[in-house]
């Protein structure tokens, strides 16, 4: 079953298109990373899936229903970011209890254990929490709600490293205990990589790639060595990234469509083959065409 299905999805704010012609499908019970630069449209996409915002054009289905104003979608979806606002009149414990009333799968035992572990007190107020603490508390809600579709938009904002690691572990642990579909947007790809099964890479409001993590790991590799040799090798290859590090030396990331024979030939030519991390690959793929920050500053 497809949990989320987008077809030609668009979202405009005024005349600016933030999401353009997006089509993808999210399978049931997967953890998908929504990866993209700032302003690529990650939050906009997630808010439309959550039913907060209405698509300007195209089709968006969540559980086979349009999420904007669907009670079924609302009951089975939870959206977590660092902007959540809860009434000042409720303390933290009451917020948890309120969530328990709304979400049918809510696990109070899990919520309580995480609540105590992260050192929250029942009578604290949501607005008094520090940024990191607030994110941690929101994360507890996101996990304990056990919604079939859980959306985390930059959930680790403000969390220190130890808490982030705890969060990743808790997420994975509870995902195994109670499988669900999770969409996770984060700019700390390196950190969330072990959690992810799929990556939805977006750039300028469009889907650049939607692949499994394993596919992406083999998607490209780096060539390191003599400039002329590599340039001739790459003549018919699609180059993802290149950087000259001396007058003769160059580093090029190319798409992996080499044959076994070509690999052997490469090594015979004295070119070093280097793996490209998922994080670097995503940065290269989403790089703007016209150079990097160095070109601006020089």
């Amino acid at each position, binding site marked *: 079953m497809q949990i989320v299905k987008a077809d030609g999805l668009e979202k405009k704010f005024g005349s600016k298109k933030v999401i353009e012609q997006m089509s993808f499908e999210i399978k*049931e*019970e997967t953890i998908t990373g929504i990866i993209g630069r700032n302003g690529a449209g990650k939050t906009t996409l997630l*808010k439309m899936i959550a*039913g*907060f*915002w*209405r698509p300007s054009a195209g089709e968006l289905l969540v*559980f086979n229903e349009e999420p904007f*104003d*669907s*009670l*079924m979608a*609302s*009951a*089975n979806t939870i*959206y977590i970011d660092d*902007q*959540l*606002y*809860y*009434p*000042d*009149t*409720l303390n933290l414990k*009451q917020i948890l209890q*309120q*969530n328990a*009333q*709304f*979400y*049918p*799968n809510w696990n109070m035992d899990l919520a309580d254990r995480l609540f105590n572990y992260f050192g929250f007190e029942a009578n604290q107020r949501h607005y008094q929490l520090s940024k990191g603490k607030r994110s941690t508390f929101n994360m507890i809600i996101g996990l304990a709600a056990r919604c*079939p579709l859980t959306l985390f938009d930059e959930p680790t904002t403000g969390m220190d490293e130890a808490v982030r690691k705890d969060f990743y572990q808790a997420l994975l642990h509870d995902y195994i205990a109670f*499988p*669900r*579909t999770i969409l996770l947007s984060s700019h700390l790809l390196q950190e969330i990589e072990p959690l992810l099964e799929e990556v939805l890479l977006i750039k300028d409001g469009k889907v650049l790639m939607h692949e499994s993590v394993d596919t992406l790991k083999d998607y490209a590799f780096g060539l390191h060595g003599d400039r002329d040799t590599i340039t001739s090798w790459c003549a018919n290859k699609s180059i993802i990234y290149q950087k000259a590090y001396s007058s003769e030396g160059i580093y090029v990331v190319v798409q992996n469509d080499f044959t076994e024979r070509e690999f052997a030939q490469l090594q015979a030519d004295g070119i070093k083959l280097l793996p490209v991390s998922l994080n670097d690959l995503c940065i290269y793929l989403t790089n703007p065409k016209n150079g990097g920050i160095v070109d601006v500053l020089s």
Partner: protein
Amino acid sequence: MSLANLKKSEILQILFLFKLKSYSALFTSLILVQILAMLFSLSGPISSGSFGFSGPIHVNIGYYTGDIIVGFTLVWGFVAGLLLTTKKYYMVDFLFVTTRKMSQVANLLFLVAISIIGTLTAQLAGGFIQSVNVFFNDVKLVTNPLIISELLLSIGSLFFYLLFMTIIGYFIGMCVQLHKVFIIVLPAIFVGTIVQAVRLGDGYNFITKSYYFIIQESIFVLFSLKIFVLITILFVTAFLIGKRMEVQQ
């Protein structure tokens, strides 16, 4: 994984109770407003006149009413309706389970509930003012506030006035959510209307006529019917605006 299918009535009930609980600050403000109004009312009759007769008799007539309390409560109701449409109040439902329709129905139920509470407390506060004057200021009441039919009439009309005010607040709030230009447009219309009404005097113009037609209707059944129609029009309009509204945080 199985999807939860919730009953609408169930969610509506949870939403309504959630609002009662989390908007408790509104009730605190109601109490404060009414206490304040009571203090004002205690300072004396709203209007009075005296008649001197030749001889030893001298009569003072004054209106000891809860009018100030009612006025304050109506303003409170207006603000409460307005508040319900602001980001903090309106959007919070969407952190839980809701649809725009259900949120608004829950809002309507909530406005009815606070109107009932506001009416009853205002009525009690009004009674309290009269009692204080009877016991401490040597005032003799001409009307008996304890005649059941009078009491019910008073409670009923106050309820409709208050609900009307909350819905006006809600409607205006929704208009402002739709577009910020209404922050300027609506007060301009309001002030313009009053200026126009004053300029034209108490004569036969549309504004004063409609005011008398609706607000000054003295037959209770007709009055409630007219108010009911108005409330329906305002709420349905607000509802239609809210149905398309996106969640802002």
